Structure formats: C-alpha cells, structure tokens
C-alpha cells in the first residue's frame, strides 16, 4: 500500500496533502504501508507505484467545496485522442487535450498511473482523496474549514487502505 500525499506546504490549503501525509506516516507505522510526501506528483513516483497493490493519492482540490473530503477511483490516463480538441489550422491542442505539459512539470494521478503501466507493466488500484481548498495564497496556515477536514481526510485514507487490504485478502476479489 502506498500513500502519496502531495502539496506545497507554503501555499495555504495546498498544505493539506503534506499535513495528512505527516499524520499518516505516524498512523500507518508498522502496517507495511509507505507514505510519501511530495510537493507534486513526479514521474519517478511511478517506480514506487509499480510495487504497490493500492495507491492512495491525497491532494487539495480547487474545484470542491472548502473543507469537503471526497474519494474517487483513479485509472491510468488513456492515450490521448490525437486530433481531438485541436485547432485545425495550427495543430495546437486545447489544454484539455494535452496530458503532461512539457513546460510546467505538472502531472496528475492519471498520468502517473499511465507511466507506471507503460514503464513497469504494473496497474495498481488507485484512489484519490481530495480535500476542497479555500485558498492557495502563500502562507503556512490552513484555512479553518480545511483544518477541520484533516481528521476526515486521514480517516478516508485509512478506510481506503483497510478496504484495499480486505480486497487483497479476499479470493477472486
């Protein structure tokens, strides 16, 4: 089991990932789960993901109500559709048609899982625990709503891991 908690600890509520990750480092000690806290998702995490049965991503979400905690399954990104969403005159793809932007260093869980599949022929189960954020302005403090959400996010990760363990130990699951 692998937990990847990401976010910038100096950008307001973006710190919720690292905060949850630090708590889980203690809370999951001795369970065999690995917790990685990272500023952002990076291609080299594919190596770690390839050795996990379940990957739980934890991240702040700008498009969710502040303080909400939600969970969804994540699958590897499929090969981009090529011409879909592309300006016909220039061939420039719309932002949503691009996956990894070669300039921004940015990647999402789907991209990381696609890399894990393509590099290491591994497709771990994966879920994303999102915590709705209020502000990403510079600062080391979480907003009140997000601060209150931290225990629920920790619980959501632990629940996902518990279910993953059960699934792994259930024949033909």
């Amino acid at each position, binding site marked *: 089991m692998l937990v990847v908690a990401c976010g910038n600890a100096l950008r307001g509520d973006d710190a919720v990932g690292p905060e949850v990750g630090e708590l889980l480092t203690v809370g999951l000690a001795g369970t065999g789960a690995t917790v990685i806290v990272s500023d952002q998702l990076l291609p080299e995490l594919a190596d770690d993901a390839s050795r996990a049965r379940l990957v739980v991503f934890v991240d702040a979400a700008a498009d969710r109500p502040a303080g909400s905690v939600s969970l969804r399954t994540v699958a590897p990104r499929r090969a981009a559709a*090529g011409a879909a969403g592309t300006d016909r005159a220039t061939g420039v793809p719309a932002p949503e048609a691009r996956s990894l932007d*070669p300039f921004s260093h940015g990647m999402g869980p789907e991209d990381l899982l696609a890399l894990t599949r393509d590099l290491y022929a591994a497709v771990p189960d994966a879920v994303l625990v999102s915590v709705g954020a209020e502000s990403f302005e510079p600062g080391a403090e979480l907003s009140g709503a997000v601060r209150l959400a931290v225990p629920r996010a920790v619980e959501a990760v632990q629940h996902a891991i518990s279910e993953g363990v059960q699934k792994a130990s259930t024949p033909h699951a």
Partner: protein
Amino acid sequence: MLNLAQIVQSHALSFFYLSSPDLLLGFDSDPALRNLVGVARQTPDLARDGVALRRFGQRIIERLGGKRIHPAWVVPGGVSRPLDASERDSILAEIPDARERAHRTLEWFKKNVASWTEEAAHFGDFPSLYMGLVHEGGNAAYSDGLLRVVDSSGWVMADGVDPRAYDEYLGETVEPWSYLKSTYFKPLGYPAGIYRVGPLARLNVAERLGTSAADAELAEYRDRLGRYPSSSFHYHYARLIEIVHCIDVIDEILSRPDILDPHVRARAQINRNEGVGVSEAPRGVLIHHYKVDDDGLVEWVNLVIATGHNNLAMNRSVLQTARHYIKGDQVKEGMLNRVEAVIRCYDPCLSCSTHAVGQMPLEVDIRDAEGSLLRQVSR
C-alpha cells in the same frame, strides 16, 4: 557532492522529462503524446533510465539533506551532520547502475545526433561569449572555482576572476517586457556583451572535466562539434556528458578516506558584513551576494542566476528559430514547438521562478517586414 547530485537529477529532468519527447518522438509529432508518457510507450528503456538517473540524484540529496527539495544540510561553516558509513555504502552501491544508464543514454544520443542537424543549425547557433567556473589548471569547477569568460573562437576575455569581483565584469539591466534581469559582459557593453552559461558554456571554458570517462566523451564531443560549439542545441549533448562526469566525481568523493570525518562544521559569529558565494548550478553560474548587519540580519541581496545570464541568448535563440521555421503567416504546431524547444535547451527555471500554474502560455505574434501584425497564435 550535494551539488553534483543536484546536477545529475536536474539534468535528468531536463533531458529525459522535458526534451527527450521532442528528440525521440519528433518535433512535429502529435503534441498530445509528445511527453514522457509518449516516450515511455515508444522506448520504455530510455524512460526508465531517465527515471532511475533522476532518482539516483534525488536519493543522494535525501540521504545527505533529509529531503529532495530545499534540503537544510548545508549550513554556514559546513554541514549539519556527518555522513555515516551506511549512507556512503548505499550511494556507492547505486553508482554502477547510474553510470551504465548515463553511458547508455549518451550512446543513444550520439547515434541519433545527426538526425537533428537542422535544429542544431537554427537553435541558437550564433557566436557569443561563454562563462563558467574553472579550477587553476583549467579543469571545470562546480564550486570553489574562478570565473573564466571566452569567446566563440576561444579567445580568453577574462580569466582567474575572483567571483567576489563579479560586478566588475557583469552588468545587469532590466527590460520593460521581462521579469527577468538581462546580464551582460561589461567590457563589451549591452547588449553586445551577450554570453551563455551552463553545460554548453562549461565545456567551452574548461580545458577538461577531470575524470577519464567524461574527458574521453568530451574529446569525442569536440571532434564532432569543434572546440567551441556555438549552437544551444548542444546543451543536450553537454548535459549528458556532465551526468557521466558528476557520477564519477561522486564516486571519487565517497572513496576519499576522510569522507566520514565527524568534524564537518566550523562555528563563528558575524565577522564580515558582506559576502559573495558562487557555484555552478545545473543551469550555470549562480551568484549570491549578501550584505548583513552586525547581528547577521540580511539588509541587501543580489542574486544573479543562470536563467538571467542566459536571458539575452535565449531571446536571440527564439528569434533565430522563429525566423527559420515560421514562414509567411501559416503556423503549425511543430513550428511553435521548436520555438519552445529552443528555450528548453537552456533548461530555464521559468515555471519555478514565476510560479506558473497550469498551461504554460505561449503567444506568438507574426509580423511582416514593416512590423505589421499578420497573425497571433497562442497555446
């Protein structure tokens, strides 16, 4: 060693993550797939080498500094704790694998370099000055060196310059259209004093690197490209040679008998109110200049960073690339990609230094010879 590990992981990011998609899949290939995921699909071995080399550098940084980004191991007077034997042995154990991957990548690049001849001729191929740190005797220095500036014919414009005197040689100016300072070599004025720093410049200013395998590669590089390659496209090649060199120097450092010495920090009070620190960062010469009060509180700072040193050269490179690839008012994505790709040769810290979020904006205005706007393209 921390700096060398940083160079390895940063060069791996630049080459494998950001530039190999163009080189491997083609500058005109489907942009939706032209990324590391696309590389992984086409040549997983190359992508795995990239991931492994980046992890090699990062793990050294983590072992020494406790974390990959902004480690707090280096402190005034030395480092915060000594290296222990198990950490040393762990790093040493990973060196053969890293070395093999670095050489394999270099061989792949050399085998394919002829296929990028057109890009090499138009990706910032112009005479300029080059600046880097060298040790006495001419070996490339990544710290504790003296500044050397040479021109494209090898004429030494400045040598043995104590970095503390940087502002006697380097001027800084600001243009209204850029957040980035533009630096120039003062004796030639602005903008004639255009110079480049980083891997290409380091290999041009140094006589040699100082490790046998890397020096053999450097000799071949000079056989292929000449003694003073002038195209910024060759930053890629230079970067790969530096990875080989840095891995070998890390090996050498770890093999020194005093590497586990517990005496790693000197302590002192404020005894000087002004200081300049210079090193070779992955992208080139990095200058930090501080003035502090008697309590050590910082009162004044000037940072001259590699991306600033290269600002004039990057702009000239964009101009050259755009003029060659953009014809008339018809613009294809592959043309725009080349305009981006020439910037990627320098591996600038644009995203990080500007805190860019999401899609990197690129806007191209196409003007006729009179300057009238024909078309705007953005992505």
